[in-house]
């Protein structure tokens, strides 16, 4: 295994500070790892949402992790393009999300065409009912909407579809 592949594997242990069941690999925010000949490690990440306040923490966690493992010279860069989409959430990540109580993203998205159309069918992560209601497009973090289940009556977070 090359050093770069090794670093990818090690970074599986860095998690999203706001959704700690997801690693940055599950989330798809880790984009690139480059090791220069002089040993400098350059890690590139991408934000889920522009204003995501977790990015600084994630960058710091990556740095600390790699420094603790003996890499001496590490820098983390932010790259916007190509823009992150919920398609980059791994299938494994979606299973972890639902088990954690957050409904994973489903099509269709919050596109302008959906304005006068049908609402997205979101399944309650607790009782699995599809009889749910959108409370607000904006929830506890940028990436989540706020739903309520009309069968078990529990409120829950839905990870918004972003394409």
């Amino acid at each position, binding site marked *: 295994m090359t050093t770069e592949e090794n670093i990818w594997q090690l970074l599986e242990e860095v998690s999203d500070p706001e959704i700690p069941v997801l690693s940055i690999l599950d989330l798809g925010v880790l984009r690139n790892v480059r090791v220069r000949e002089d040993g400098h490690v350059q890690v590139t990440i991408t934000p889920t949402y*522009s204003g995501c306040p977790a990015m600084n923490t994630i960058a710091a966690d990556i740095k600390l992790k790699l420094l603790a493992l003996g890499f001496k010279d590490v820098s983390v860069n932010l790259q916007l393009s190509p823009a992150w989409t919920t398609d980059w959430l791994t299938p494994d990540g979606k299973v972890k999300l639902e088990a954690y109580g957050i409904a994973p993203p489903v099509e269709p998205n919050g596109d302008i065409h959906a304005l006068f159309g049908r609402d997205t069918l979101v399944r309650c992560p607790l009782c699995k009912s599809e009889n749910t209601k959108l409370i607000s497009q*904006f929830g506890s973090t940028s990436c989540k909407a706020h739903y309520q289940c009309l069968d078990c009556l529990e409120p829950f977070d839905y990870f918004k579809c972003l394409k």
Partner: protein
Amino acid sequence: MDLQHTPTAALQNYSPELRVLLFDYTLQLADTSLILGHRLSEWCGHGPILEQDLAMANIALDLIGETRSLYQYAAELEGKGRTEDDLAYLREAVEYKNPLLVEQPNGDFADTVMRQFIFDGFHFFLLKDLQNSPDPGLAGIAAKSFKEASYHLKWSSEWIIRLGDGTEESKRRIEKALSNLWRYSGELFAMTQTEKQLAQASFIPEYSALQPQWEAHVAKVFAEATLEVPQNVFMQKGGKTGLHTEHLGYLLTELQYLQRAYPGLEW
């Protein structure tokens, strides 16, 4: 911690003139999303209900996230060592190039919704087109923010309908907001010299091509909301060339307070 964007390789091939034009334009976009984001953040803790308080704070966060990318890119284009913080915190009101609409005070919830709706449609159609700019910096930021802007437009469109086609009081308030704010909509599409030159070079769209798309969306939502599109309104302008309403100075006083009182302070 200082998390920097990956440098834009294409800049090495740009002429100094093109870099100045792109700097001016990027700065104008950044000022616009910063000022509107700041205005929305003033609602935090004061929203009419918790969900809408959260919605406005979320939209503010998206806009300020977009602002940071834009200021960082502007600083890179300028190449004089200024940082995103210098651009946001150490310029005077006359140096800000945001259109007048976004600096207007929050007023009541209907005023805020109307200001947001007028802006969101413009923002949505601009970013949609800007994703195809030959400039990778602008295209990348636009592609990122476009996805967020579609949620904003959905939110403000739904509220226009709910307030317009709601109770007698909500209707009265949204009509008042419309009559107060419509006069600032024209400036969004009135192109400055910088914008004209960049459009001519195909770096940004001609705004005359965006306007009909925006008008069609406004007409559709207003019809649903039982609101009339105002006709023959004299359009105010000036913000995009640095001539602002008195409101911007007060806003900047608060926004820039910490850096003015303690220059160079960092978290």
